[in-house]
């Protein structure tokens, strides 16, 4: 207990903890917002690129876009002179369109000074293909207006039908976002706090205080105390973040004069009632309202509880292993070689997270989210999509078994490791420590 308290207090009291705790929820959205902002700005104000077009066919009329200005060269110009002239300019590219058969279009060439990106190439190709398709259609005497009406844009509204038959607006995007964010957060937390455990153990070992302490406690107690102490730091941090984010989002919503709509409100709106929205122009925006409805539908409590469970479970699992590594080495440099096998399942699960998010119901996702080493991340990825209760229970039970097991294994290595100084450690030695009696 005392160890837990010391770990907790000594970390929480640090100024860096305070700063990290308070600033992170501010910085993260700020960074993301900033990136989006700059991206948008970039899109808007990006230097327009000049593209010279030598169109010998005369079919194409490319309209200037936000990114490109098309400069048409006289059709009589030869390609060679055009190229020489292009080289002398600052322009981005020279596109040469030869005379071509509509049925067999070829010979299109794009000359540029730098390698154009794939998206740029695709953009041009797409443009040409589109144009040629239109031209072909025109041959069948289809009017331009008919062509225009062929272009449709739809948005697919997806609805989950629950077992009791109630319809729930589901959003693959929201589930994806939640899964990705939660999985990634757990990954980061395990890494950060796991590394802290390891650092702490190495510090105790290298500052040689450990022998004094184990003369009063069982090494297992010290290790568990350390792991739990740091876990409580992590939990505190997360709870503060959740609270801060909640307060901030409410604040922002209040700022925009929107209250979190209750289901009745939404029904009112979806029934087309405009009455209540008179004083709230934003509520007129159906897309926004749909987004808000989805946001309101997210079972926050369920998510937060399972997030905390998987964070604690996954952390205990890996934290114990990190502690064992810390006990085996004399310095953090040496720790690298033992870190590797521990980080592999972590990295594997973060990589497969993408797959899990794409196929949350697949067998592969199921196994990943049940095996304790990968379950914290994989299950958080699936949870937004809705997971059968028995799977969740199985995964949680296995995780508990898993961390009990790793703590036991780590404890056996730890108790020997912390008192060994300067011995060369490899996996064989670790196995021997593990087998050693007290």
């Amino acid at each position: 207990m005392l160890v837990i308290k010391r770990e907790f207090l000594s970390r929480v009291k640090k100024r860096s903890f305070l700063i990290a705790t308070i600033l992170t929820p501010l910085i993260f959205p700020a960074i993301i917002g900033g990136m989006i902002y700059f991206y948008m700005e970039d899109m808007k104000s990006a230097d327009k690129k000049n593209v010279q077009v030598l169109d010998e066919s005369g079919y194409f009329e490319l309209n200037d876009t936000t990114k490109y200005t098309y400069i048409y060269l006289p059709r009589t110009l030869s390609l060679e002179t055009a190229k020489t002239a292009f080289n002398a300019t600052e322009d981005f590219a020279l596109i040469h369109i030869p005379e071509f058969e509509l049925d067999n279009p070829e010979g299109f060439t794009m000359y540029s000074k730098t390698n154009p990106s794939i998206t740029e190439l695709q953009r041009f190709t797409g443009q040409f293909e589109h144009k040629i398709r239109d031209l072909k259609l025109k041959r069948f005497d289809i009017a331009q207006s008919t062509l225009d009406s062929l272009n449709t844009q739809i948005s697919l509204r997806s609805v989950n039908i629950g077992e009791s038959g109630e319809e729930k607006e589901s959003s693959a995007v929201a589930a994806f976002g939640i899964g990705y964010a939660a999985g990634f957060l757990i990954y980061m937390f395990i890494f950060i706090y796991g590394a802290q455990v390891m650092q702490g153990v190495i510090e105790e070992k290298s500052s040689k205080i450990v022998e004094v302490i184990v003369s009063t406690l069982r090494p297992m107690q010290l290790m568990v105390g350390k792991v739990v102490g740091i876990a409580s730091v992590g939990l505190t941090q997360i709870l503060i973040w959740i609270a801060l984010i909640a307060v901030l989002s409410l604040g922002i919503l209040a700022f925009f004069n929107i209250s979190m709509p209750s289901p009745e409100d939404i029904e009112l709106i979806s029934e087309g009632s405009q009455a209540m929205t008179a004083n709230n122009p934003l509520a007129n925006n159906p897309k926004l309202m749909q987004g808000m409805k989805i946001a309101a539908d997210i079972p926050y409590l369920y998510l937060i509880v399972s997030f905390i469970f998987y964070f604690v479970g996954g952390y205990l699992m890996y934290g114990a292993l990190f502690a064992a590594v810390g006990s085996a080495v004399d310095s953090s440099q040496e720790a690298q070689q033992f870190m590797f096998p521990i980080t592999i399942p972590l990295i594997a699960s973060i990589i497969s997270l993408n797959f899990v998010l794409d196929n949350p119901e697949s067998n592969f996702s199921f196994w990943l989210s049940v095996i304790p080493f990968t379950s914290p991340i994989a299950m958080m990825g699936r949870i937004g999509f809705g997971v059968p209760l028995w799977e969740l229970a199985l995964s949680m039970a296995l995780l508990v078994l898993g961390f009990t097991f790793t703590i036991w294994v780590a404890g056996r290595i730890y108790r020997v490791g912390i008192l060994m100084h300067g011995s060369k450690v490899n996996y064989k030695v670790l196995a021997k420590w593990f087998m050693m009696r007290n």
Partner: protein
Amino acid sequence: MNILEAKGINKSYAQHKALSDVSIDIPKQSIFGLLGPNGAGKTTLIRIINQIIEADSGTILIKGRPLQESHIRMIGYLPEERGLYKKMKVGEQLIFLGQLRGLSKKEALQKSQQWIKKLGLKPWWNKKVEDLSKGMAQKVQFISTVMHEPELIILDEPFSGFDPVNANLIKDEILELRDKGCTVIFSTHRMESVEQLCDHIAMINKSEKILDGSKKDIKEDYRNNTYDLTHFGEIGPLSENFHVLEREILGEGHFRTAIQALNGESPNNLLKELIVQTELQSFMERIPSINDIFIAKVEGGNHE
């Protein structure tokens, strides 16, 4: 009465034996020296007493009762590999360590402040350990060992790493604690410190106990009635019970001679014989130092 009795302690690590059948009795209110060359098994024995590791076989009794967790409270341990949390403040650290040894927070605060004052560290109470000089950190370490008023204090190589000033200070504190009723176990391979401090000693070599007893008895056992004398004028033949071991000429008629008295002859008889032959300048019995005994024992053991 013995505060600690170890009986038939065995401990082996994977390949080598660290302790084989070691038994020691440590009388209460004594300073007990646990001697032996590096790697003899001293630290292993101490770790067993501290319940850091368990013996393969054998029992340890503290005040006649088998070693158990509640004994942690009455033991103070200063390991050879010692250190403190560098980032923690002196005061907090002492309170934490005191609480680990079973003090309440209030007691820990009070005791640590007393000691801090006694050893002149008061201005450093709120400083981090990493800002302290090495000597001061050592004092803090020592306080953490004794602040909970343990009845049994175990010091593993206490003077290694201490500067002479602090070593003396600690020595005085140890004596004072002994006088107050504490028992101190000293583990060391440096014999000079034992010579001055210890009442009892035990020697361990190559995992086995090779000698133990009170310092006086051991010295008694190892003296061999040899006398060193310096004198002016040569010594002629002596009676048959006196055997001249060494003779050295110091110049200008001065000599140094070592004479062994055989068959229990008293030094007075030797003096009687000498006085008539030469002018004595000094006469002293050669008493073996613990160091000599130690070396003789260890080397003897190696030759066997």
